[in-house]
């Protein structure tokens, strides 16, 4: 188990729960509102979360290397 595996898993779970909620509401908007919500809220949220997910993955790999250096 890596140093950041727990927050990474939690982030995946949080995102999955939100996506389910978002999907459930997808048909409840009128078309204009849904498109606008997607463009101004959902997509930027997705991008922000993906960037942070990628940062966590890179840091986790870095920490793995550090843990090897201090083990033993």
């Amino acid at each position, binding site marked *: 188990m890596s140093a950041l595996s*727990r*927050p990474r898993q939690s982030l995946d779970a949080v995102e999955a729960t939100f996506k389910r*909620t978002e999907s*459930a509401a997808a048909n*409840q908007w009128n078309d204009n*509102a*849904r498109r606008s919500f997607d463009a*101004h809220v959902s997509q930027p949220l997705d991008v*922000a979360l993906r960037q942070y997910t990628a940062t966590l993955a890179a840091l986790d790999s870095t920490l793995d290397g550090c843990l090897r250096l201090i083990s033993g």
Partner: protein
Amino acid sequence: MSEVVRSSFEALETLRVGLGRLAVEVGDVTADAEAALRQTHAQAVAAVSRRQAQVNRLSAELDQCRRRPPPPAPNCAPIATALADVERSLADAKQAVRTIEQAMSTHSAARARLMREIQALTSQGRNRITAQLGYLAVYLADGFGGGGSSTDSVGIASAIGSAALAEELTTVPEGYRMVPLDLIDDSADVRGTEDFKKPGYSPEDLAWSYTALREVVLPALARGLGVDHFAELDAREGLTGTHSYTECFNGFFSASEAIRLNGLPSGRYSVANGRHRIWVARELGLDAVPVLDPSAHSTSERTQS
């Protein structure tokens, strides 16, 4: 109809709550990641400390060994080898500490950026949903709902347990009415966010006004309260300018600033005043906006001409 609307309310309300929860849970995740980084840093610092102690001990042993007078000639090579090994592992541990400190700094910046974006986006999302819920309710209450009525709407609001929403289901002040956006022609003057140049009147500012209209102004008007009440609320909440209830009330319900429409022979309307607000209302997905009664306005125009 009311079943469909109730389902819409529930799903959108759940999404609004979900956005709030997302911001909190992402905050927890980032705190968790920071704690994991701190813990790894502490492990590395402890390793440095442990290895430094070993280096000190072996250095002292080697020193003692070399000072031992012959005969026999002391064999210090094993100690020197052990010391060299521990010095290498000390250098590794120090390198690990530096790398982890860089990682902490990288994470701290990424965390701050993410939380700024998440707060702004979830807040904007919640405003959009609030406006959508509120306007759907007002739309129905005002009789534009294709068979909806105030009674139905109050029932719907009660069904989702929103007292504020039920309270809001009132008509707008005398001389004003809700007009469906579908009946209002697009303006060529406002095509996108780049057409919002007046300070204090950005799309986000106007979205704030629609939320304030729905959450505070219309419910207060329904209770017979007016501009004094909004001034008192503004003072209490420290609100000023376009982000104040007074300005929201004046903006929507004073003859000089209200949204005004011109009736067209086709039965549709063109915009005489309020193009930016109408653009934002469409972006928010609202169904209707409050306007100075179009029939009164066109009568007045005819009288003047």
